[in-house]
């Protein structure tokens, strides 16, 4: 499986966890909105992964080191 597909699935998985937790919290009368917002915000990131060369991980950029 290509790296970007793995990353996309992972981001989608984390988004769904947050949305699931938010739903469970709201259904039980607790504040679930912050987790819901995070879940929704992650969805476009899953779509963006691998589509724009500017949003790649450090390794994919050739392992640049910014350490002093």
């Amino acid at each position, binding site marked *: 499986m290509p*790296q970007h597909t*793995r*990353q996309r699935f*992972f*981001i989608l*998985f*984390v*988004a769904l*966890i*947050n949305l699931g*937790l938010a739903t469970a*919290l709201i259904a039980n009368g*607790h*504040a679930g909105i*912050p*987790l819901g917002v*995070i879940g929704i915000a*992650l969805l476009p*990131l*899953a779509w*963006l*992964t691998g589509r724009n060369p*500017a*949003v*790649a*991980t*450090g*390794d*994919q950029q050739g*392992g*640049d*080191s*910014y*350490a*002093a």
Partner: protein
Amino acid sequence: MQLDAVVLFFVLGLAAGILKVRLPFPGGLYQTLTLFLLLAIGLKGGAALAEHASLRIVQESLLVVGFGVVLPLLAFPLLRYVGGLNRVNAAAIAAHYGSVSVATYAVAVAVLDAAGVAYEPYFPLFVVLLEIPAIIVGLVLAKGLSAGLASRQLAHETLLSPGIVLMVGGLLIGAFAGDSLTKISPFFMDLFQGALALFLLKMGLITTEQLGALKQDGPFLTAFGIFMPLLAGGLGALLGHGLGLSVGGITLLAVLGASASYIAVPAAMRVALPQANATLSMAASLGITFPFNVLAGIPLYLLLAQWLHGS
């Protein structure tokens, strides 16, 4: 909806950072507040330790250290095989997530105090214990078993970092000072919440600076910075429940698991793995995980603890 006053200071810092407001926050004040908080947490823990010292705490401490070893081992394969990071960067970030954030711990304590939730008072001991194992595991993951703490400079950075010295020093002073501690408690205990609020205002500003790095370095790290606290927080809560801790204790162990270091570990990694990209680790731990824990994680871990405890 009511938010904790201390947390709102963090939100104010975030807002000021996003709006690019130039708040005149002196660097020396930030360092003073860090020193104050580390000492105050150590002193509180030391006083509690003197009162509650027992074999049970030793057993709990060993399990907490084991927990600190397991966390980077969970983070590393995710970073390496899902994130596609190279071995050194994956190990460095894993070390950050195995260690703890004292600021997140302080916020959790403030939230518990405000909610009137009791917790085991010797928790600062666990904060100190959880700082170190992840650094060693991170090194082993990056360099193999032979690396260890072979370098004298690294051993110094790891075991005698300013954060650890101040917290352990505070613990020892608190443990051995006895009643004379009351002489300094108006300064260290009564002013704690105010100092934490100011500290968090600065943390909000720093967080917005770190978010910029994530624009370049990846949606994956953003998701990782949210997933890891949920996983480690859940495991910490289960461990706390298994140890028979109170609701507050389970919450705090979840917070310790969920938080990622941005003071002690970066200093150690600069010495141990200079080729690691420090921006990636800091952006994830400070730009994503810290605000996640402060704004959404801590209330979630408290609810989880209440659910596990059946209250």
